[in-house]
């Protein structure tokens, strides 16, 4: 007897109980022995009344339907299939079966929903804290800053490296910074000023680019050379600094004919 009490608490209504009873018969819903089902259902409801359980109202309504079905002493359901001339619609048997089928489907559907709910809980949506744009290459920032010069140099280096790779030859890296210092000074001796971009035009190897650039930086650092810009984004131009501004004279290597 106490198990019944437990069972009642689990059933969420008469449909739930009916479905449980159908399952106990272990047959297809449409093959279920309705009379037996009705008998069992009424027994349960009687028990509920004895146990004085709440929420029995819905069960009692259903119980009256079951009693009506029972009282008609129905034939087994299977024999009724296809025999729809006397209007299944009003037949409480069919009505009940249909409701049971429908109810079971929704019960299954609610299991599916529960499965989806559990699955969804394991899924995390990407929500980046900020918009992660790849940092732009430095060369795309302000023109004519030292960082941009560096960026430009880097591009040159890559281009030269690509050229070397394409040719399949490796240019021997013989350029030194001191040589380039001399070369830049010489060129600036011939022209008053020189544009930054012009410095690298004939340069052939990565080593040479680096040497040229470092020479330039060093000349600027030693104030032998001045870099100016007409405007913020203008091309950098270089010229020899007035002698009095020059601090150190680097040792001059042997000049070379050009």
């Amino acid at each position, binding site marked *: 007897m106490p198990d019944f009490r437990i069972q009642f608490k689990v059933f*969420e*209504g*008469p*449909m*739930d109980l009916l479905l449980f009873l159908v399952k106990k018969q272990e047959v*297809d*819903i*449409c093959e279920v022995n309705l009379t037996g089902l009705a008998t069992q259902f009424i027994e349960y409801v009687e028990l509920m009344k004895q146990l004085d359980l709440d*929420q029995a109202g*819905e069960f009692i309504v*259903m119980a009256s339907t079951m009693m009506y079905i029972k009282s008609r002493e129905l034939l087994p359901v299977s024999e009724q*299939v*296809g025999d*729809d001339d006397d*209007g*299944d*619609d009003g037949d409480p048997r*069919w009505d009940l*079966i*249909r*409701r049971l*089928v*429908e*109810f*079971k*489907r*929704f*019960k*299954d*559907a*609610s*299991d*599916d*929903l*529960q*499965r*989806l*709910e559990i*699955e*969804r*809980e*394991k*899924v*995390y*949506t*990407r*929500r*980046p804290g900020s*918009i*992660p*744009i790849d940092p732009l290459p430095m060369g795309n920032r302000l023109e004519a800053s030292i960082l941009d010069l560096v960026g430009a140099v880097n591009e040159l280096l890559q281009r030269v490296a690509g050229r070397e790779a394409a040719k399949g030859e490796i240019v021997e890296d013989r350029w030194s910074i001191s040589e380039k210092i001399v070369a830049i000074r010489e060129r600036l001796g011939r022209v008053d000023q020189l544009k930054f971009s012009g410095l690298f035009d004939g340069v052939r190897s990565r080593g040479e680019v680096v040497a040229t650039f470092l020479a330039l930086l060093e000349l600027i650092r030693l104030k032998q050379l001045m870099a100016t810009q007409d405007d913020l984004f203008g091309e950098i131009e270089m010229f020899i600094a007035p002698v009095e501004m020059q601090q150190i004279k680097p040792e001059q290597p042997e000049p070379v004919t050009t």
Partner: protein
Amino acid sequence: MELKQILEAIVFSAQKPMSTGELRTLLRETPEKLPDEPQTGEYAKATVRAVEKALEELAVEHDAADRSYRLACVGGNWQFVTKPDFAPWLQVLVGAKPRPPKLSHPALETLAIIAYRQPITRSEMEQIRGVTVDGVVQTLVERELIEVCGEADAPGRPRLYGTTQFFLEHFGLKELDELPAADELRRIHVELATAPADDSQEELPLDNETDEADDDPNEADDEDDDDK
């Protein structure tokens, strides 16, 4: 540059899921707002359909790439989501998801009825479930899973209920048609409504299936696992 790639980059970077409408608007507005980026003009006239198609293709590509994440459409909004296998680490990383308590069985059952038969009145729900649904319906409304979506053309003009956008999100569904067995369950409504006497024949073959579907929810889970 392809439309597909642009959409991917946007959905990838967005801090919230994006609808095709929002994506299209963004494509249209970008050249207007950034006249210095002429290359963006090319994509300004992409139709919603083209956007949708591109996203669907992307989702297929990502599924094929079989990474730890995929592109998903939930409730009409596109988002990148991780696959369930990695949930433990992400739970430790971002903390457990702030979710209200799981839905009870009666709530889930009622919700299933509403989801498949919407718009639906309270008494129609009760007819199927065989019990009153007042409390449950209120809970579902409070949880914003369902909402009143009209009035039935019946005595007393009872309210009609339907599921919300949040319902789709809560269950990770793209649209209502993605509900499991939606074609069967949602069609029944029509059949019953239009030809109530008709379905005694049709019911039988379907019943076999339904009945054999025992209540083991793990079966479906296993199948899911195979997909991973």
